[in-house]
C-alpha cells in the first residue's frame, strides 16, 4: 500500500515538473517550492548526522587524542553565526570565511599543479616517430590541438604574427571540443528523460520493465 502511494506521489510530482514545458505555472511553482523546502531541511539533517555527529561529537565522545583540535573549526564555525547578529558585529563572520578561503586556496594550488598541470603537460610530450604512422598523426593532432588552444588563451600579445595565426587554428579546435561536449551533454539529458519515462511507464503504470 505504502509502495503504491509513494509511486503515485512521485509520479504526480514528476508530472508537476514536466508542466513547466507549458510555461511557469502554479503547479510547477508548487512542486518547485516543495523541492526547495524539502531539500533545505534535508541538508540540515545531513549536517547534523555526518558533520556534527560524526566529525565532532563522536571523536570527542571516544576521547580521541586529537579531539581537542576540533576547538579550531568549532570556534570559526560559531564565528560564522555572527551573521545573525546586527551589522555592528556581523563582520566577525569574515574570520571564518577567511579560514575556509585559505584552506580552499591552498588545496587548489597543490591539487591543480600535482594532479592536473604536470601530468597533462607530460602527456602532451609525445614522440612523433613511433612505429605506427596513424599514431604519429594522432599524436601530432593532439600536440597541435593543445598548443594552439593555449596560444588562443595567450592574451598579452599583438593581433598579428605567428601567434595570431596559431590562435586562429586554436579557436577551430576549441569549437570542435565544445561541439563534442555539446553532443555528450545532449546525450546525458536524453538519458535522464529516458530514465523518467521508464519510471512513468514502468514503475508507475507497469507497461514496460521498471528501472
Amino acid at each position: 500500500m505504502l509502495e503504491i502511494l509513494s509511486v503515485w506521489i512521485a509520479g504526480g510530482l514528476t508530472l508537476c515538473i514536466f508542466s513547466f514545458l507549458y510555461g511557469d505555472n502554479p503547479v510547477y511553482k508548487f512542486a518547485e517550492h516543495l523541492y526547495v523546502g524539502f531539500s533545505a531541511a534535508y541538508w540540515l539533517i545531513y549536517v547534523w548526522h555526518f558533520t556534527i555527529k560524526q566529525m565532532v561529537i563522536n571523536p570527542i565522545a571516544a576521547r580521541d587524542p586529537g579531539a581537542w583540535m576540533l576547538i579550531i573549526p568549532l570556534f570559526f564555525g560559531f564565528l560564522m553565526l555572527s551573521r545573525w547578529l546586527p551589522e555592528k558585529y556581523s563582520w566577525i563572520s569574515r574570520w571564518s570565511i577567511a579560514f575556509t578561503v585559505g584552506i580552499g586556496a591552498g588545496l587548489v594550488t597543490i591539487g591543480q599543479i600535482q594532479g592536473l598541470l604536470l601530468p597533462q603537460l607530460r602527456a602532451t610530450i609525445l614522440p612523433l616517430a613511433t612505429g605506427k604512422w596513424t599514431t604519429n598523426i594522432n599524436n601530432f593532432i593532439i600536440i597541435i590541438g593543445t598548443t594552439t588552444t593555449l596560444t588562443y588563451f595567450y592574451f598579452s600579445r599583438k593581433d598579428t604574427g605567428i601567434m595570431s595565426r596559431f590562435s586562429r587554428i586554436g579557436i577551430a579546435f576549441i569549437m570542435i571540443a565544445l561541439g563534442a561536449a555539446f553532443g555528450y551533454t545532449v546525450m546525458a539529458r536524453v538519458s535522464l528523460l529516458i530514465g523518467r519515462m521508464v519510471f512513468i511507464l514502468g514503475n508507475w503504470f507497469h507497461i514496460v520493465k521498471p528501472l
Partner: protein
Amino acid sequence: MNGNKKNFWDLINSISREIIYTILGIVVIIPLLIGIKEEVQISPAVEAAYKTIESLDSTDVVIVSIDYDPSSMPELQPMLKAILRHTFENNIKVIMMAFLPLGLPVGTEGLEEVAREYEKVYGEDYINLGYRPGDRAVMIDMGKEIRNFFRTDVNDIPLDSYPMMRDIHNYNDIALIIGLEHGRVGEFWIQYVGSRYNQRIVLGVTGVMAAETYPYLQSGQIEGLIGGLKGAAEYETLIKKPGFGLTGMAAQSWAHIAIVMFIIIGNIGYFMTRRKQGRL
C-alpha cells in the same frame, strides 16, 4: 511560385514549441513501449576499462566508489551493475564506498542485487564500507590506513571481523579504484589518489562530464573511461549481459536523430530566410 516558396519556409520556421516537445516525447516513448533492441559499437575508452578489469586476478581487490546520487541513476546505475557483474564473474573482491550520502542506498541496492545473482558472500567476496563525509580527507588518509576513517563497515561491524579485509590496509592492497562519478569527486580521485599513491583508476562518468575526462584517459591518469548511458550499453555488450543501458539505446538513438533533424531544419529555415532578406 515565389509566394508558395515563401510560405513553405515560413512554415518551416514556425513550428511551435509544443510540436517539438511532443515529437521528442514520442520518439522516446515509442521505442521503450515496443522494446526495440539495438546493438552498440564498442569505443576504445570503454574497451580500455573492460580490459583493465579483465586483467585483474581473482586475488585482487577493487574499490567501487559511488559518487553519484539518484538524479544521475539512469546513466550510472546500469554502469554499476555491469561492472559488478564483470568483477563477480571473475571472482574479484569488491569494496564499495560512497562519497555522496545519497548514492550509498542506490549503490547498496545494486551491489546486493548483483551479489545475489552470483551467490557472493558478504565479508568474504565483497564488503560495503558506507559513506564518510570529507571526500579529500578520507581519500588521502586511506593511503595510510583505510581504518582511519572506516573502522567499521556500513552496518557498524569492525572491518577486522571480515576475512577479506584482514590484509587490506591502504592503496597498496587495492588493485584498482572504479569511481562512478557525476561531480567533482572523480577529479579528486585522480588528483589526490592517482597522483599521490600511483593508484590505478577507472572512471564511469555522466555524459555531461565525459568530454572533459578524456584528457585524463590519454595521460594515463585513468586507465578506462565509461561515459553516459551509451558507455553502460557498451559495457553490457562486452560482458554479454544486456541491461538498462541496452534497453534505453533505441530511445536514445531516435531522440538523437530527432534533435539532429531539428538542428538541420532550423538552420535551413534560417539560411533560406536570410537569403530572401538579402535579396529583398
